[in-house]
């Protein structure tokens, strides 16, 4: 075991791990964090806390992680390269680990032009591959990125993202290989709606044996309505929502679309469970956290393993 992370323990045991997500509030409202996290308590193994998601200012991921940790829930610190240089990132990583946060996700982040501070400078001192390498070097070699020794290295279980649906498709397995090479322990994928394409990507992943070097957690987001599906298809870069998904949601009356969305998401999980190399799920129920227990129940993912 490289770390004390619960997520690592579950994944290493060969059981399907499940994470979910909590977006911190746009203000100093700690109770909002607690409310959201409470909905997930006991139903998932760790809760991703997003870092200025969609380039909008929110309570810092680290602060919200600490609040969640105090509730006895395992937080998963997300960090983007957009807002911090390597000094700030490393100090926050040490800080997080000092608060017992031992699992994190290294991302580049949405571009500022998508958010509410499009005038902000974007940092991008390092990229997500270099970020993964930096954190694994801190952990395994006890060294800062600059080369100096760390007194008390943070033992982070390190995740990265993969989007099998972005272009060009033909390099998407290679891009994963780069993150694996950098030392990524686990991967959380972009939301999967096009399962055929995901399976094709996984085929490439298995051909290279990458699924044996990194745990792949399949990203799932239930659709609340046909409007949401259309928005995701047309407005979110790198999102692949097939027409079938939209048709199916459009085929039921408006008030039944949410239920249909949950049903589809449960079916997707069932199908993805059968895909060799899928080690777990990352359920991002955006502002719909209350549905996570039901999804978990219906997908046969409860109870969660205890360690």
């Amino acid at each position, binding site marked *: 075991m490289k770390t004390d992370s619960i997520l690592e323990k579950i994944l290493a045991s060969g059981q399907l791990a499940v994470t979910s997500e909590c977006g911190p509030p746009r203000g100093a409202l700690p109770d909002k964090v607690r409310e959201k996290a409470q909905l997930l308590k006991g139903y998932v193994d760790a809760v991703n806390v997003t870092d200025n998601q969609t380039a909008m200012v929110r309570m810092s991921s680290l602060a919200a992680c600490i609040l969640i940790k105090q509730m006895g829930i395992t937080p998963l610190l997300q960090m983007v390269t957009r807002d911090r240089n390597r000094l700030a990132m490393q100090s926050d990583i040490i800080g997080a680990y000092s608060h017992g946060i031992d699992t994190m996700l290294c991302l580049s982040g949405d571009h500022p032009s998508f958010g509410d501070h499009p005038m902000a400078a974007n940092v991008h001192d390092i990229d997500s591959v*270099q970020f993964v*390498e930096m954190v694994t070097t801190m952990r395994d070699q006890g060294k800062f990125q600059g080369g100096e020794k760390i007194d008390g290295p943070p033992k982070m279980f390190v995740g990265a993202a993969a989007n099998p649906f972005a272009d060009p498709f033909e390099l998407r397995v*290679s891009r994963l290989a*780069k993150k694996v090479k950098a030392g990524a322990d686990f991967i959380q994928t972009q939301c999967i709606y096009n399962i055929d394409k995901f399976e094709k990507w996984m085929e490439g992943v298995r051909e290279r044996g990458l699924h044996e070097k990194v745990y792949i957690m399949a990203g799932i987001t239930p659709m609340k309505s046909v409007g949401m599906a259309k928005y995701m298809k047309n407005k979110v870069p*790198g999102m692949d929502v097939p027409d079938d998904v939209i048709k199916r949601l459009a085929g039921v009356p408006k008030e039944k679309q949410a239920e249909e969305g949950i049903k589809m998401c449960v079916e997707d999980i069932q199908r993805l469970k059968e895909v060799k190399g899928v080690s777990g799920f990352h359920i991002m129920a955006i502002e719909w956290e209350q549905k996570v227990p039901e999804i978990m129940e219906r997908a046969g993912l409860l109870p969660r393993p205890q360690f």
Partner: protein
Amino acid sequence: MITAEQKPMKELVECVRPFQRILLAGCNECVTVCAAGGRKEVGILASALKLQFQAEGKPIEITEITLERQCDPEYVEELVAQIDKVDAVLSMACGCGVQEVARRYTDKPVFPAVNTKFMGASERQGVWAERCQGCGDCVLGLTGGVCPVARCSKQILNGPCGGSTNGKCEVSSDTDCAWQLIWDRLKALGKLDQYEENIPAKDWRSGRGGGPRKIVREDLAS
């Protein structure tokens, strides 16, 4: 080359307003090529400013000159003949030229008439695009001759990110995804194996990270 765009007329009028006699100085290099501050643009801007102040009933005197290179002290020296006859200089050169004039003529106000934009190339008639950020440690040999520092919106050295769509960048469908270009080029070169070599974190000291930069060539320095 260095690209530039003329500042809005309104801004130029306001910065010239306090003065009676203006030296409008163009440059024969980059800004001529990108049609922002060469001899032709000097002529057009001079007429426009004269007309504007004429209409306001406060005519101004504008002396036009276009130097060979405004970033070069040798040519900036040529302004000596005019400088005492004007109240201010409006420079149509890039920021380097403006600063060279300011450095040489310490008691003369100098204003930029253009916004200096980027180091770029001409994509087609009338269109210029950014190509280089002068990071001081060129990676083009690793990336198939396409610069991820200047051309990827997130400066990703191991791209592409998850937002690349149909060859375009997630930030704008008018912008090519640098990493799509890099991939295509490596493929054409038969060098796809190079893609999986992780490019290490950059040492930005060779760029702006190390503070203002200077090149000293001992063999040439006097």
